[in-house]
């Protein structure tokens, strides 16, 4: 009952005309950005974050959440119509989605993805609504050792699940942790690795690092690939699926939704992993294996739902524990911090209006997304007419203005430049960039918790072994870190 009354309060805030306008605007921008290949949700949210400085925390978070949810669906449009995934999460939808387009069933593929996304988005928000307050209550009992163990678990999952090479993920994570040590040490007030640059006393701005690693490096990568001038010229009919198609896809939508929500909650696994896992499940259990890869509707409906529900699921650890599980939720965390809000278990109590307005806005954004997806597909595909050089030039200038406005300083702009180069090289060397960002955000939290723990225990590490929650999380972290490595050794021996 309390959840219902809180949700009503959230709706009353989200439905204020000003806030509603920002949800709609965010959704429109999100879907448009999702359509454009080479621009993903995290990059869009990072570059557009400075636009929200003048807004209230509610309007700011509603706008950014709208972009986040919208980009998830937008990515599947070009995947299905042109086999050009707008986002990495939509890559797997291209396999059968594009085949459906070639068979003249583009409308059905888009329609079923839109419905699946709506169902998935709504379900994941319901999970967030029910699990979030409970998790935050549990987390209130957490002390520094539990927090350290939780961050350790998150970081180990991010580095091991987010990359196809464990050692590369670990290197990226360690690089992020090292970057997190730059700035004033909170314990004794000594500047570390600032080289006399006063602006670095507050640490390396992770928003600047994120803009560099995602926006600048991606703009450079886009220049290498000619992605522009791809248009869909076919007819778009049958966006509303028939009852028979709906019946056929319902199971896949349900499986994708549940799988995506729970995978989304795990740090590091993310929407891409959820979409790929959903595809592999659908392909495996299909009664018509000959249709897989040749336009099987279930292989479009499942992943299309999984990526959307994962986006909602990723908000659970952010809002209840203050731990971001993906790069986009890390930017949302940054948005909260910019507005002076400290995410964590107290968020549901101290800023309940903001949290419940965000939850309500996700419902609204889902419904708006369904309308946009069915009524606006034709104009949305026109966005692809934007030539790559113009788009790259715009993103690069926007990155400069956005990073400058973080602290009205050129230091942040040069951080963007440096991490643009590093991000570009990392992408070519196939080192994942997401662990760098998340470790940069979580590293200072981990150090603080660790030092507090040491004060509590008088310098003894035994404190970690005497607290049940801590030891379980540390063991889980170690298992998630080394399981892929152990599996690869055993599979190598078998061969």
């Amino acid at each position: 009952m309390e959840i219902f009354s809180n949700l009503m309060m959230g709706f009353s805030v989200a439905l204020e005309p000003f806030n509603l306008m920002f949800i709609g605007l965010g959704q429109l921008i999100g879907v448009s950005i999702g359509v454009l290949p080479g621009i993903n949700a995290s990059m869009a949210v990072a570059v557009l974050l400075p636009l929200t400085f003048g807004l209230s925390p509610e309007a700011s978070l509603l706008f950014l959440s709208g972009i986040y949810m919208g980009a998830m669906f937008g990515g599947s449009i070009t995947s299905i119509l042109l086999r050009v995934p707008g986002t990495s999460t939509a890559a797997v939808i291209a396999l059968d989605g594009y085949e459906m387009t070639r068979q003249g069933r583009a409308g059905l593929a888009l329609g079923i993805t839109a419905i699946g996304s709506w169902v998935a988005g709504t379900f994941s928000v319901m999970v967030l609504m029910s699990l979030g307050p409970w998790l935050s209550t549990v987390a209130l009992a957490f002390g520094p050792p539990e927090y350290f163990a939780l961050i350790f678990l998150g970081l180990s999952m991010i580095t091991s699940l987010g990359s196809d090479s464990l050692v590369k993920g670990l290197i990226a994570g360690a690089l992020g942790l090292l970057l997190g040590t730059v700035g004033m040490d909170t314990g004794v007030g000594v500047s570390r690795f600032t080289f006399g640059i006063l602006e670095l006393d507050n640490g390396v701005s992770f928003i600047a690092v994120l803009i560099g690693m995602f926006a600048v490096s991606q703009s450079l990568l886009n220049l290498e690939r000619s992605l522009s001038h791809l248009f869909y010229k076919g007819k778009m009919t049958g966006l509303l699926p028939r009852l028979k198609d709906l019946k056929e896809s319902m199971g896949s939508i349900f499986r994708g939704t549940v799988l995506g929500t729970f995978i989304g909650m795990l740090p590091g696994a993310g929407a891409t992993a959820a979409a790929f896992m959903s595809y592999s499940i659908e392909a495996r259990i299909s009664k018509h294996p000959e249709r897989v890869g040749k336009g099987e509707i279930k292989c479009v409906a499942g992943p299309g739902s999984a990526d959307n529900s994962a986006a909602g699921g990723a908000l659970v650890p952010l809002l209840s524990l203050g731990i971001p599980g993906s790069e986009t939720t890390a930017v949302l965390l940054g948005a909260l911090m910019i507005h002076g809000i400290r995410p964590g278990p107290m968020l549901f109590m101290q800023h309940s209006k903001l949290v419940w307005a965000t939850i309500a806005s996700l419902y609204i954004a889902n419904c708006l997304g369904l309308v946009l997806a069915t009524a606006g597909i034709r104009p949305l595909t026109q966005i692809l007419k934007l030539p790559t050089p113009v788009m790259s030039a715009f993103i690069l200038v926007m990155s400069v203005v956005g990073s400058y406005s973080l602290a009205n300083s050129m230091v942040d702009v040069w951080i963007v430049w440096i991490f643009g180069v590093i991000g570009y090289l990392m992408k070519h060397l196939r080192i994942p960039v997401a662990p760098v960002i998340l470790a940069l955000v979580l590293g200072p939290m981990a150090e603080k918790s660790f030092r507090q723990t040491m004060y509590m225990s008088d310098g003894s590490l035994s404190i970690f072994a005497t607290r049940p929650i801590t030891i379980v999380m540390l063991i889980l972290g170690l298992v998630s870190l080394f399981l892929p490595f152990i599996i690869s050794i055993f599979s190598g021996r078998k061969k």
Partner: protein
Amino acid sequence: MARRLPYPKFAQVSKMGPGDFPTIIAVMLAIFSVWLFVDTFRHPEKKGEAKNDDDTKTVKNPQARRDIITGFGIFTGMLVIMPFVGFSLAASVFVCAFLLVVGRYKFHVAIPIALLIPSLLWLIFGYLLTVPLPKGPWGF
């Protein structure tokens, strides 16, 4: 029983200073680097893998490589001149040069876009959000 286990003494409060955490991470980074070094030699990339990789292909394309280096050079130039000539002029010159050299646009197309993008961003950030963007000697 757990309390009686022999734990390392590195984490004594008196010794836990601002340099300890970075040292631990640096040691980890060194270990991972050696691991990657050994791994690269033990499992060299198969020929087929490299062939199918988009990134490897584009780096080997001299035209794409030239575009990247030129584009990034122009971008760097914008950042260098911005504190002296201001945001508006630096960004306009950047967009124009970028479109002419990297995009191979004609002058009459590049110039309007070069005026439009910085003006739009100045309107949003400089005017609506009142961000004090860098100004040149001429006041904008």
